[in-house]
């Protein structure tokens, strides 16, 4: 494993933008974040955390933060497959449901908390 902690956070969560330096901010939706991550993965970025949440409820979130990092190795199929499948899955669920904007602030908060846990995990696992 490369000892390389230079991650970047692809996010549309304003709280995350405020609190972190390493941000690729997406003006747009959860889906736009997935698209941005897909584009990065196809140009050689490594996907650090899984793009989907751990319950259907988290699909309703207006915000999502996903960690990637530049990878000098060539594109890895696992990352491409994971992000592509995640997009298909996200679109499947959200084609009939509404993004829960009423609770937007709470989702922003939980997204930031989950990101924090993911970054802690990243530090534990990737060194």
């Amino acid at each position, binding site marked *: *494993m490369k000892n390389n902690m230079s991650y970047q956070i692809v996010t549309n969560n304003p709280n995350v933008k405020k609190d972190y330096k390493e941000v690729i901010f997406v003006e747009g939706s959860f889906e736009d974040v997935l698209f941005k991550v897909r584009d990065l993965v196809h140009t050689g970025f490594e*996907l*650090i*955390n*899984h*793009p*989907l*949440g*751990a*319950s*259907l*409820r*988290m*699909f*309703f979130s207006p915000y999502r933060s996903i*960690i990637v990092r530049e990878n000098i190795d060539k594109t890895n199929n*696992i*990352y491409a497959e*994971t992000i592509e*499948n*995640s997009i298909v*899955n996200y679109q*499947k*669920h959200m084609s*009939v*449901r*509404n993004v*829960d904007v*009423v*609770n937007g602030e*709470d*989702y922003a*908060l*939980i997204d930031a*908390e*989950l990101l*924090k*846990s*993911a970054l*802690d*995990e*990243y530090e*534990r*696992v*990737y060194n």
Partner: protein
Amino acid sequence: MKLELRRIHIKDIQLGNETTVKNGVLTVNKEELISKLKEDERIKDVKLDVARPGEKVRIIPVKDVIEPRVKIEGEGNGFPGVSTKMAQLGDGKVNVLYGAAIVTVGDIVGFQEGVVDMWGEGAKWTPFSQTFNLVVDIIPVEGLAPHVHETTVRLAGLKAAEFVGEAGRSVEPDEVLVYEMGSHAEESKKYPDLPKVAYVEMLISQGLLHDGYIYGVNSQLILPTLLHPNEELDGAVISGNCVAACDKITTYQHQNNSAILDLYAEHGKTINFLGVILTPELTTLEGKFRTCDYTAKLCKSLGADGVIISEEGYGNPDSDLLMICKRLEDSGIKTVLITDECSGWDGMSQPLADTAKEAIAVVSTGNVSHVVTLPPADRVIGNDKAIATLAGGWEGCLEEDGSLKCELNAVIGATSEIGYHNCTVKLY
């Protein structure tokens, strides 16, 4: 290890001036329990209420469900590592207020789901419509950070369960269940010809509202670990998860883990049950690879011939489930997976977020997107604003007569992936 679960059958709960069990009626000293919980200065107020099977009552948003118990012999009353001092669980005698449950309500965030309907259509879909529920609604002081709020509510529920459980200390049980199992060497000697079976229980381990604890250790921090089944039945595992209402494993379901109980029932008859491997569902991909490799390695080291794997949640944990399955099947270990599915309102979408051809034996515990219509309740315990959240999923799900269309997703324990409830899916 030898654990006696001594069930005292509870037939009603009353709020009163003492905390006792008489003739199956559990009376709870309301003021004393409230002031006990308010010893935690983060709690501003506590509301207690009782919901009985059949009453037109809706509880929302449920955070956790806990079975009230007291350990009358052996180490570790309560929840060691969390609410009491560390102790080795799994041996001894426990008096269980069977049929009673502590249900905590606390909306840490506005989008929490978690409905328990005690009557009618809704009752069908949750196992906790069958228990007498002491509902503990915890109102924290203002300005608590969300993770402090979550901890506060979680601990208050455990404390309430301990307090109420004490009422059973000197009551004679109606039935006594004995769970006894020696070391692997001993059991293998006793049952040399029986196939060895391990149970892999996956836990969401991803951060706030997405956590589980083993002897108080956040499961995010562990490598997959082996437990004697008695430890979990004795309170070693508790829930800190309150987003995936339908398929989160509540503390009550850890205490009464149906997969463990059903494997135990076969132990010494058709199988040699090796124990429980608790596996965290991490969020990073490398983390997932590591835990999946490690879980498979544990199963192999134990010499398992078969493994039951249960998931918690839907979405990214599907990957872990199938990766573990693949690794085990590739090494010749037969697996059965327990998972719910997300096949859309019409049941016609692809059921899982991931697929693996090795997953040839899967138990489906229901479609979390299955739409149910819940009629209006006479009484709502908790926060009826949370109902608006349920109604916010899509257009037109709040009917004119006040009934509510929601997905099973919102119903506590509906599609329990440890197979605690009876839902399944049939292809029509």
